[in-house]
């Protein structure tokens, strides 16, 4: 029954998405903008994604992978609230099972409040995405070009942190620099622990806009993982993003030491426009692994993005020493920001 209800809701969503008009930014509902509740400062929105994969070896799999709800509130002065709650794997199916909701689970992805003092200083308290690289901060399926996620964007650090963050921006040489210092104080603040959470962490992220279409970033975080309390790690990351017309080039690399060995991981991804709303995507990944030789991957994909909040993707992934972390196979998805 729940599965049918979810499928019905998803169908309504897809039909609504097909009818919605992009490009505006008024106060009435628009796809990719959420729904404002009058003048209360409250806005609801979210995103949904459906994924299918045929890894090799292994049975095919299908899932309504994300149903996320955003709630934002601002007093139009100095306070801002944001939450993202998610039902993960709301509906799954595969070669070994029929449609089922038994894997469905609730996740609290983000929950924080910001106090804005000025452009230089804002203080955030709550659960937020760990600012390591660009992908983790913008990981929602409607915003990415591939169904699969680069190993380097999640393998060596926790994707979330819970605690305090001081963040802001300031001009440097006529361009803009964004920064963040954050501390993950205790896992006790987060009743819905995400996978592989920090036990505690101290980190910083810097992002410099060299031009309107070129960004370079640097990350550092010192941390202990909840599931590996015997080690304390240091992770350094660099990132770059370049945009020209509808071409894109992104890269992220991280190095972690403090465990049994130092580990490098990273990727380079290029996006090129084809005809109309079609895009070609290519990605190379490298990732050191603790108990296996270093893995390498190539991802070759196509994406159809008729309007920015809505995307269809299909890709083939192939590599070496990648059976556990990121198996070869054909993957596809549909995602919409609503």
């Amino acid at each position, binding site marked *: 029954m729940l599965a049918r209800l979810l499928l019905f809701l998803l169908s309504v969503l897809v039909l609504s998405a097909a009818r919605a008009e*992009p*490009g*505006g*930014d*008024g*106060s009435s509902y628009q796809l*990719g*903008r*959420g729904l404002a509740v009058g003048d209360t400062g409250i*806005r609801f*929105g979210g*995103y949904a994604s459906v994924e299918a994969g045929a890894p090799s070896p292994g049975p095919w799999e299908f899932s309504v992978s994300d149903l996320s709800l*955003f709630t*934002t509130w601002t007093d*139009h*002065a*100095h306070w*801002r609230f*944001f939450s993202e709650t998610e039902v993960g794997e709301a509906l799954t199916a595969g070669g070994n099972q029929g449609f089922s909701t038994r894997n469905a689970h609730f996740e609290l992805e983000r929950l924080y409040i910001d106090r*804005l*003092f*000025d*452009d230089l200083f*804002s203080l955030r308290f709550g659960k937020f995405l760990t600012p390591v690289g660009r992908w983790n*901060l*913008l990981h*929602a399926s*409607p*915003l990415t070009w591939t169904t699969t996620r680069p190993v380097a964007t999640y393998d060596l650090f926790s994707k979330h942190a819970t605690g305090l963050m001081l963040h802001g*921006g300031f*001009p440097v040489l*006529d361009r*803009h620099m*964004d920064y963040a210092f954050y501390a993950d104080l205790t896992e006790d603040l987060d009743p819905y622990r995400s996978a592989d959470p920090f036990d505690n962490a101290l980190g910083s992220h810097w992002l410099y806009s060299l031009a*309107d279409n070129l960004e370079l970033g640097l990350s550092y975080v010192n941390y202990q993982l909840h599931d590996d309390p015997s080690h304390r790690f240091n992770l350094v990351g660099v990132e770059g993003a370049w945009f020209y*017309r509808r071409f894109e080039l992104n890269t992220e690399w991280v190095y972690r030491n403090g465990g049994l060995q130092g580990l490098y991981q990273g990727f380079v991804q290029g996006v090129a426009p084809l005809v109309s709303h079609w895009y070609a995507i290519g990605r190379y990944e490298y990732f050191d692994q603790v108990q296996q030789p270093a893995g390498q991957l190539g991802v070759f994909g196509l994406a159809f993005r008729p*309007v*920015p*909040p809505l995307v269809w993707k299909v890709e083939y992934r192939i590599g070496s020493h990648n059976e556990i972390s990121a198996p070869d196979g054909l993957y596809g998805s549909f995602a919409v*920001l609503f």
Partner: protein
Amino acid sequence: MCRLLLILVLASWQAFPWAGESIAVVAAAGSRLDKLSLDTVKLIFKRKSMVNAYGDRWIPVNLPPAHPLRRLFSLAVFDALPEDMEEYWNEQYFQGINPPEVLSSEEAVLRFVAATPAAIGYVRQAQADARVKILLRIPSTGDLGEPP
């Protein structure tokens, strides 16, 4: 490409009775601010700058995406048309930040800005009256960003 679009928009601009007029970035007449740079206006309308020098939250307002003045403003400030900014605003939305609210006309912008402290908008320079203070003039041709 964007330069070409700017030329095309400017060419179509000639068809309007206000051809050749500058764009005036305006705040309330009683605003404590006297001028803004083009870079600051860019940050405000991209919601990268949230608070002004006096600690008040900026309230930027836009004209509708199809409005000729909005399109010229967007090209002059961001070097991109409003529809080219959609991906940027989707990314910001994912981080809880929404684009400036939209008002339907220049008169609506003038009324809102005049009545709302820390609001900022833009109109044709000839439309800017005693209700508002011009913080930046953006010439429709020539150098951009010259303060008043």
